[in-house]
């Protein structure tokens, strides 16, 4: 138990550590005085503007962007800067989008996983296999493009559509989890306890869903961290493509426009999300899998 607590503590320590490192690095970049629309303006040189908003770049200054983030004050260095409030609002929007995408991804993963496992030894298996291969071979923005073209054909406005964005974000992680799940299911279906289930009168569907599926679920938890990564990247692309004013789009914009304050806060938050997800996956695994729980003791 103490070992577990130590691990949680260590992982949590990574969050402020990343935030400080990113801050120190970003503040030490030799910003080019690019007069038209970047950091520096005519009356003010880049460095002075930077320190005015983000502190002096010392270790103690690392709290300054966060004070502004939580206080809702201006964080950007451009003429019309993003404020902490903008960022928080965008973050909320993205979390909602991510939750929707996760839900869609799980649904489609479950369908694909069960279908792929159920058809394992039939001729249609090759057909079912083509879907994930195509998804893995297509960059996300092309999927978004397909969705947009379809939406235009159907007369649905795609600009600003959170559901379309979520749908596109869900495709790749869903396919990934679906493949992981069905591989696990195929491995479970040949285990003796499935035969026992059939021998006591379970239908093949019940043996698959009630007996094999729960045993394949820990594999799904292992796929959680890559899914979070995939959703994060998906949010960059889908939000930019569909014009959803979310955190991913804001981050891409900030990097394009060289907006250090936003980059510091966003990068650290992304790191926090990834660390939190991998921790949650591990804890969930302990909660779900009685065998893993036994091993951890």
């Amino acid at each position, binding site marked *: 138990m103490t070992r577990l607590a130590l691990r949680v503590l260590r992982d949590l320590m990574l969050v402020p550590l990343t935030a400080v490192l990113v801050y120190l690095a970003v503040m030490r*970049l*030799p*910003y*080019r005085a*690019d007069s038209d629309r*970047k*950091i520096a303006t005519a009356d003010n040189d880049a460095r002075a503007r930077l320190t005015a908003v983000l502190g002096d770049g010392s270790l103690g200054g690392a709290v300054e962007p966060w004070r502004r983030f939580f206080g809702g004050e201006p964080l950007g260095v451009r003429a019309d800067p993003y404020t902490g409030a903008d960022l928080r609002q965008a973050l909320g929007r993205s979390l909602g989008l991510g939750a929707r995408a996760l839900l869609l991804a799980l649904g489609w993963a479950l369908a694909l996983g069960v279908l792929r496992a159920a058809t394992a030894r039939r001729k249609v298996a090759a057909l079912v296999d083509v879907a994930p*291969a*195509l998804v*893995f*071979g*297509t*960059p*996300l*923005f*092309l999927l978004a*493009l397909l969705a*947009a*073209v379809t939406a*235009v054909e159907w007369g649905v406005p795609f600009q600003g559509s959170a559901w379309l964005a979520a749908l596109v974000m869900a495709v790749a992680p869903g396919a990934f989890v679906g493949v992981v799940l069905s591989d696990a299911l195929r491995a479970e279906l040949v285990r003796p306890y499935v035969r026992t289930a059939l021998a006591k009168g379970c239908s093949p569907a019940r043996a698959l869903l009630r007996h094999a599926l729960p045993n394949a679920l820990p594999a799904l938890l292992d796929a959680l*961290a890559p899914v979070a*990564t*995939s959703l*994060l*990247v998906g949010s*960059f*692309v889908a939000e*930019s493509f569909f014009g959803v004013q979310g955190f991913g789009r804001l*981050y*891409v914009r*900030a*990097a*394009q426009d*060289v907006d*250090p304050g936003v*980059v510091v806060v966003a*990068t650290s938050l*992304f*790191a926090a999300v*990834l*660390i939190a997800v*991998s921790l949650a996956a591990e804890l969930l695994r302990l909660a779900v899998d009685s065998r893993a729980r036994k091993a951890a003791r």
Partner: protein
Amino acid sequence: MNVRALAGLGLLGALAALALAHAALSGGAVACPFGVDPQLPFETVCAQAVGGLWRSAALGLTAGAGGCVLAVAFALLGRRLGKGADLAVEKLAELFFAIPDVLVLISLGFVARAVKGGESVSLPWMMVALTAIGWAAPTRMVQNRLRSLERLDFIAAARALGVPEGRLLLRHLMPMAWDFLLAIFLMRVPAIILTESTVSYLGFGLPVSEPSLGKYLGSHWGLLLQGNWEAVVPAWALLVAMVLGFQQVGRGLLERSEGGRR
């Protein structure tokens, strides 16, 4: 050689043949059936797509190879320096692996813009950046492979006979890892191509005048909404075909190399 690998190899061969055929025919009598690039009227869609294919492939191959070389170097260095270093390499690789490549590349794009200005980065810069982020996954795989090979009896026997550690690594362990290395290299290539195309789409990639497939698609996708399929679909098809080709060869080889171990 299994079916998967052969299918992938066939796809890649067809792509290479297509690119070579284009090189032979361009400048000559045969016009590009897809017309000219609406955004750069002095280039044909064919030239843009095939040029993008070369650039994407070059990025994928060099960065994939670079990442694998780094991976082997780190894994061997870790072994050479002892258990603590080995573990440190493992933890570092795991940490790096958890960070999405696209996120790192966007941050690097931010740095590039801050330091030297401009909207795009050069091909060599992109190669270095992609190599720098691509070492983590292969490092973990090489480490795992070396550890499982290490448990084989003949390695223990060689060690018992007093074969020095360096020789053991180079003469006994590495030869068994070559096919595996080739497989992970081939699996890295499509991952890198996809990452690069995503980053290029987001505006952190190569210049519009020398696009990779991803950059071309990223700057031309709007044409699709105007119904201009001819300008977009060739590059799209080439990208999907190349990624699928590398993926299938890589997975096929990996299956074979893992099958052979059992």
